[in-house]
């Protein structure tokens, strides 16, 4: 859905720091959402940790830099990192160009898919959350 200039596809799950999660068979694909991408501006660097890294929900596991800010990526669920998008090493701006497609960041093998229920998913919830954040991050 489109909310005040931000595109947030309804079929995705969202982590509150504005990362999306998509279910693909029994793995999860993760990336930065359009709101965070727009707020961050030009992404200049994405750190891709080694495959096999254990992920603990809410704990940081990777880093993303934009505008001299080194941001952290927090695990949306417990599980294991199975792949990072290596194209981002050469071209981190893919996140700015196509955050839900070519700019995907990580593939995760979740320990328990039930944990997806802790993420934001119902269209009404997505809308409420994004509207609140638009208000919160309004740049005067």
């Amino acid at each position, binding site marked *: 859905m489109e909310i005040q200039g931000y595109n947030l596809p309804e079929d995705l799950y969202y982590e509150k720091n504005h990362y999306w999660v998509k279910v693909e068979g029994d793995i999860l694909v993760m990336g930065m959402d359009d709101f*965070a991408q727009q*707020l961050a501006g030009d992404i200049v*660097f994405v750190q891709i940790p080694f495959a096999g890294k254990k992920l603990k929900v809410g704990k940081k596991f990777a880093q993303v*830099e934009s*505008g*001299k*800010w*080194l941001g952290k990526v927090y695990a949306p669920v417990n599980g294991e990192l199975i792949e990072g998008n290596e194209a981002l090493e*050469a071209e981190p701006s893919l996140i700015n160009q196509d955050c839900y497609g070519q700019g995907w960041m990580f593939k995760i093998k979740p320990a328990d898919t039930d944990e997806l229920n802790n993420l934001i998913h119902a269209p009404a919830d997505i809308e409420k959350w994004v509207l609140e954040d638009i208000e919160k991050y309004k*740049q005067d």
Partner: protein
Amino acid sequence: MEKIIPPNDLNDTLPTWRLLDTPPMTAAENMALDEALLEVKGEGKSPNTIRFLQFSPRTVLVGFHQALHEEIRRDYCQANRIDINRRITGGGAIFFDENQLGWEVFCDKAFFNAAIPNARLFKTLCEPVVAALARLNLEAEFRPRNDIEIDGRKISGTGGTESGKAFMFQGTMLVDFDVDTMLRALKIPVEKLKAKEIDSVKDRVTCLKWELGEAPALADIKQAIKRGFAKCLNIRLETGGLNAEEQKRFAKKRPRFRSLGWIDSVKPRFQKRETVRSAYKATAGMVRFTLAVNLPQKRLKDVYITGDFLSFPGRALYDLEARLRGAPLDRQHLHGMIRDYFDQGHIKIPGLGFEDFVKPLDQCLEKTEMAKFGIPLEHCNLISVVNGSFEEVIQKNPSVLLLPYCAKLTGCDLRYEKGCRVCGEDCCSIGPAWSMGRHMQMQVTSIVSFEDLWDELMRMKASGVAAYIGCCCQPFFAKHADDFKASGLPGILLDIDNTTCYDLDQAKQAYAGQFERQTSLNLELLETVLQIRVESCGNEVAA
């Protein structure tokens, strides 16, 4: 009815932050302490904090993801006892000597009611320092995204990161500034550290000493910054030390921050930084573009626009540079940005317009295109093209090679003539170039004056020559770029070595064919380009 708080009680209701004034430390210690403080704060086990930091010995610090090799002159740093380390925050490489003061904010994300850093947060965190500068009688401004400047000159650069529940934000305050050492320690894209270039760097930064005539006492600067934060963030600051958890973490982290595993952890596969430059002589003055680019990522990392023109307002040029920094390396996009900047009236330069800026820019971009042919970028810098891209000119199979008389032996009887008898190996670089050209079945001729060049170009055009390769010094090309263009003939011009008539202020004599020094052609470069021509078009004589 509004509640009125009596002034005396006001202080008690303000949130209290800790002021951590740490003594000068090594780079590894300062970096380890940054990470320790941030982690502990991120776990909610310490108070919100403002820290002052200083370095001893002086140090260069690269940003978290930068490759040392691309940013720092290691040999120079090692020989001059300058520490080298890596920050835990983003941004570019900086030189931090004993005179600089760093300030840092460690605080709960909740304090700013934000989990994601954003432009407003950066502004909020820079404003206290702007206020501090005001206390020192300096009128500073925040420049998005995160610099503080005085009249367009940067006095404080900032950067940040986060961990768990906390943000960390840090900046430098330039108290006094040793530009010469900085230029030698960092790989700043300036040519040969000529006085002029040192000046152009000096134009873009400033420090308390330059602004005030003398540097204020350190204690006064700290006091001003402390007050700035207290006032702008509406907090009370109480001096304190490290808590037990922070001390433990700090001790544990130090060895890692001293190790090469940390300092040298980024390899320059994608974090490349290379420099291209080009100059264009417009009627109203010379315009030089120096770009630091990351080719794998197609990004413009840094840009310097210099020249002998005057722009208004004084800061307009630096603002334009700031806008271009970080932009995608895309011709259309960059043109659009520069055009808008001129169209919107942000900059006024008597006699110069948008077109005079994009000409040298395009030459720079053209150089990055040449890199695709496997020519190292430092060599691309020595190549200029006219009436087409490098690729287009090569495709036309240049059939003429033009060589300047100034490279001939000064005593040669043919110096001011069109020919060369390839008399020997060592006497001048014309002989070998001549053979190379002949070997490639090119028509080779030497140029003896500007008039002769023009006649030659016209003759070539009339006889159906599709393209040429020539050698000349870059000042000559910068000055005559429009003439080369007007001839309508596509060409590739290679820079020559040694002191040119321009350096010696003898351009007039050279123009008339009376320059008496001997220059030298860049034979290696000529060979590379001729080889590319053969590979694209064939035409080598079987030996």
